[in-house]
């Protein structure tokens, strides 16, 4: 009888501790999700949440300026324009450098 009671107490304590652990774990998960949940700002096009590759291959506005650059004939104007393009703010999430994009456009225009 006494042994039975002891076993029952042991069982109950196990279940109580298990319940506390479950509740504490859930509390931390809820806390974590609330910390992660603050308004998510989307600034680039990512293929997945954990991907480092963004779909911006090149800067749209730099490309536009480079198309202008290759349409200018005057070499002096070209040099001034290239200096200006180099000073333009570049999009943060781009793969190609100015030189790479410039070469690509040059090839495309022939």
């Amino acid at each position: 009888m006494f042994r039975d009671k002891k076993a029952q107490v042991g069982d109950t304590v196990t279940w109580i501790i298990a319940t506390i652990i479950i509740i504490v774990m859930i509390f931390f998960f809820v806390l974590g999700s609330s910390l992660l949940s603050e308004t998510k700002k989307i600034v680039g096009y990512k293929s997945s949440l954990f991907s480092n590759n963004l779909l911006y291959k090149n800067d749209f506005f730099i490309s536009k300026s480079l198309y202008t650059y290759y349409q200018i004939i005057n070499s002096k104007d070209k040099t001034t324009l290239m200096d200006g393009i180099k000073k333009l703010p570049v999009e943060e999430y781009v793969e190609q450098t100015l030189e790479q994009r410039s070469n690509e456009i040059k090839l495309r225009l022939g």
Partner: protein
Amino acid sequence: MKNKRGEEKIISIYWFFILIIVAGGIILMVRTFYNDPYDVREIEASLLAEKVANCIDLAGKMNPDLISNDGIFKPEFKDHFLSRCSLNFNSENDLKAIQYYLEVNFYNDKNTKTSLFQLVAGNSNWKSDCDLNDKKYKRLVVCVKKKFYANDNSGRIYLVDILSMVNKGDKNVQG
């Protein structure tokens, strides 16, 4: 035997209680995580700026509807800026103020201080908010500034400066 049955009953009630706690926890987690909206205003403002850039500059040459061969900007384009660029700033709710603002300045490539021509559309009331700290004031407008070079048919080069602004704080930011 009777005791065992009672014990089983208690355990099944306990399991039911745990199940409710776990399920409630999962529901709470999902609700907390997905309750906050996604702030897409920066992308929206960038897309707006890109759309305007495509309207002004057609593959390296400026739109002939905007500028004549003599390098004179056409006021008709300014008057019908939104329709010429296929833009519609009307809000879904008639009582709500316009949530967008666009400003395009054209500068001579050698003098970037004096604007030669300006295109303006939308609600300019929030323009001053662009200079405020967007991390501190999340609900304020999102401003995107873009610059590029374009040339006209006569080979004159212009620096085009676009300011694109999107408000829509109630839809993109919570709290």
